[in-house]
């Protein structure tokens, strides 16, 4: 299910995942129900009932789960910084290759 690379870069080298603001999250679980990549995990019996379990399953630049979030509790890294990081990793790989 998880992407192994994105634009030729190992997915695990790219910092792109949702961050849950627990001060805002009301554990409605809309994001977990929505995400087909199983990025989130619901923990019914825990105090923190929702965590980001599989960050590297998250599709780079996708923020669709945040569109389902009523209390606006999900945030993502800056897109420009992320694309710049991808370019740098690719350049480094080219120079080393």
């Amino acid at each position, binding site marked *: 299910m998880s992407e192994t690379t994105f*634009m030729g870069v190992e997915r695990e080298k790219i910092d792109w995942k949702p961050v849950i603001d627990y001060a805002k999250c009301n554990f409605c679980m809309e994001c977990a129900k929505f995400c*087909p990549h199983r990025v989130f995990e619901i923990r019914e019996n825990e105090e923190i009932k929702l965590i980001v379990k599989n960050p590297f399953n998250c599709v780079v*630049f996708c923020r669709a789960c945040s569109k*389902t979030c009523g209390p606006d509790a999900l945030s993502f890294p800056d897109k*420009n910084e992320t*694309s710049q990081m*991808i370019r740098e990793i690719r350049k480094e790989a080219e120079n080393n290759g």
Partner: protein
Amino acid sequence: MVEKYAVLPCNGLDKCAGVISREIALRLCGEAGHEIICPVFSRIAEVKYRKIISEHPLFVIDGCPTRCASKLAVEKNFKISNKITVTEEAKKSGIELNDTLQLREKEQALIGIILNDLMNTGNKVTQTIEETGVSCHFDYETFQKGKFLFRVPVNKEIFFNENDCWAYVSGNRARIGVTDFVQQNLSDILFFTPPEMGAEIDQFGEAGEIESSKSVFELITPVSGKVIAVNEALIQKPELINENPYELGWIADLELTAFENDKELLIGFDKYFEIMKRKVNDLNG
């Protein structure tokens, strides 16, 4: 907002944004003669509103991204003609809503801004398809999975990103849109929010949204550029994206601003077709 609308607010008492949606609906109906659809009563007595819905386009006011009013419209098979989300309007205006259900000064200011915007919607300047000079008719390679057919256009001037969006580059302009992978996964597309005319968007930035009963998808633009046209036909007929997202279902035209740089993170038909097939197989087993 020049037509007479049937107005469906979320009316939610869970958050301040819901109370704001209710207030906007009341003011639209009281001051501008639109017709209100009560979301609570319409659940149990839909027949009361059937005539209003059949005679007027539907304007939905969601309080927050949970989109309860939109979901209700879908559930009742009401066609949405226009919509806003209060929390998004608040963000655009730099207003932070309070945590209570009270409408204070800031919330009243937001209501005023939204109402003013709605009243002036008819004055927005847009361009039509013909004015941009880009036309799209393509040959396709197809991939079938069960009953679903996934087309990808074969053309050297079409570039893709790995977020399932395409750009057809012609001179210093590009037409952008989503691929069949997106529209098949969203299923019936019910609403289209175009990017703003004149907006300058960086590569991988958001260039409009499309929405189905399943989800909202933001188009992640493959190329950087200034929005010079949007596909207005999608506002009335978002289902054109389901019919063909590469031709009549295009999203916007951009004047390119950094294409040589953007190309580094784009792929052509061969690579995208393989990636799409893998994604389809991953999602459908």
